[in-house]
């Protein structure tokens, strides 16, 4: 009899404990499930993106009048982005020259200014900054355009006409990116080098010959090669991501209509920027 209330109590406690335990198990279960769900959907999306890009590349052979579409895409990705690339490139070089000069001046080795400016531009800043600028200017426009075309059934119309929408809309843009990105990067680096010369040599008084010979001595052919490889990979990746996001604007569950277009454009730009920097690290570590 003495134990009865005690037992009663422990029973209650035990029940309470079981309850807490159960809810905790439930919570963990739902967390694990959410994790599983998001990783499956991530893998699914990655696979979908890979198939999207591959089918666009495969369409290269079957496309008709591809040249004209590529010219149009080159106009958008190339000519339209020229001002921003030139301005940003020049100022990047100017700032590098200015900062580098003052840092190197402390050690009395201003003569290495050319090496500093050229190596940072050729190896990293040129490809990365040019790609980011191109995403901002051409990639976002591309994602929005495709999103609107999806929204107003223009892509469905292409399909009903028997035109392969991948081949018509995506393939020429990917090809144009493979041309435009390396060209823009080369322009960015060239303008940046002249910017460095302007600030280091013209404004701060470093001998021009010292600057240019330092540039020429520092940059190896393999650096230029790496720069071009990076630019091509960035171009392919970012334009593919922007096309993918715009093309699939209708698949967004959270938003429809104009909101879906804006959401897909934002996602395209953010994902592209992340991809540029991630791919930059991976390529650098492979090529070093």
């Amino acid at each position: 009899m003495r134990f009865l209330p005690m037992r009663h109590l422990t029973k209650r406690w035990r029940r309470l404990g079981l309850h807490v335990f159960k809810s905790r198990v439930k919570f963990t279960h739902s967390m694990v499930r959410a994790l599983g769900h998001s990783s499956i959907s991530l893998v699914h999306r990655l696979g979908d993106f890979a198939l999207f890009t591959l089918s666009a590349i495969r369409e290269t052979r079957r496309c008709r009048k591809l040249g004209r579409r590529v010219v149009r895409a080159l106009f958008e990705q190339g000519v339209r982005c020229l001002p921003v690339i030139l301005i940003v490139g020049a100022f990047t070089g100017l700032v590098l020259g200015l900062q580098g000069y003052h840092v190197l001046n402390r050690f009395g080795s201003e003569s290495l200014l050319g090496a500093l400016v050229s190596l940072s531009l050729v190896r990293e800043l040129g490809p990365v900054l040019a790609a980011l600028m191109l995403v901002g200017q051409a990639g976002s426009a591309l994602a929005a355009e495709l999103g609107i075309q999806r929204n107003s059934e223009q892509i469905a119309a292409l399909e009903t006409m028997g035109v392969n929408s991948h081949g018509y809309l995506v393939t020429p843009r990917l090809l144009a990116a493979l041309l435009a990105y390396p060209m823009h990067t080369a322009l960015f680096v060239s303008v940046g080098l002249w910017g460095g010369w302007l600030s280091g040599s013209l404004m701060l008084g470093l001998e021009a010959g010292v600057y240019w010979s330092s540039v020429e001595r520092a940059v190896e052919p393999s650096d230029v090669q790496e720069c071009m490889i990076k630019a091509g990979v960035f171009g392919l990746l970012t334009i593919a991501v922007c096309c993918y996001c715009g093309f699939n604007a209708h698949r967004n569950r959270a938003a429809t209509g104009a909101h879906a277009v804006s959401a897909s454009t934002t996602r395209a730009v953010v994902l592209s920027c992340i991809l540029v920097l991630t791919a930059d690290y991976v390529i650098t570590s492979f090529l070093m």
Partner: protein
Amino acid sequence: MNAASSTTPLLSIRGLKKSFGEQVVLSDANLVVHRGQVVTVLGRSGTGKSVLLKCLAGIEKPDQGSIWFDGKELTEQAAETRADFRRRCSYLFQSNALLDSLTALENVILPLEQTTLLPETEVMKRSLEALRQLELDTFADRYPSQMSGGMQKRLALARAIVTQPELVLFDEPTAGLDPQRRNAVFAMIVKYQRQFGFTAVIVTHDVAEVLVISDHVALLDAGRMRFEGKPEDFAKSNDPVVIDFRDSPAALRQQIHGLRLNPPFV
């Protein structure tokens, strides 16, 4: 089944089923379309008329049922048949779905240039001819956004017929048009149907005009065909749903009959 025989219907839909989540749009839709006919699918808004057409055009995938075109079944696997169907069929979107980054002429050139192997001069000739027939030849260099709604509709029709299709699907071609324009569009459809000899499937809810132009009428209600037959039979039918749809002004008169007694404004 002999594909070329004239008794084979050009298009037949059997037991088509489509639902979006919980909502069942088509439960059991059947339709037979013979060559050279103008077939109209009527139905209230939201009864799945457009979904039926989209299933036909391959934009939506039906859950169940089969679609037969010229004696062959259109399935996901039969890529060859589907490609053949796309070549021989055009779809006129309710929203026109013109490519707004291309001029009127480029819009018409597009299907010919991308899906046929015609030489460039021939493509240009046919496209200009299609524009001329729809009285758009003076607007060849305009963009769709610079055109009126009626002109856009005509441009979409020009793009649809330039490939000389055997079957044209019209998704509400008169939505949002005034009665005169509506008549003009229907007249245009019939005119070109006679001229080019294509088979037309029109989805609409303009009863009066439809009874004049079509050879075959179907009424879609609650996901299935409530009525299918000749327009004369449609006009005589005693089915309450048909009456409700066909004689809507009378029904309206009946509905508001009692309201007349108390005018809201003094």
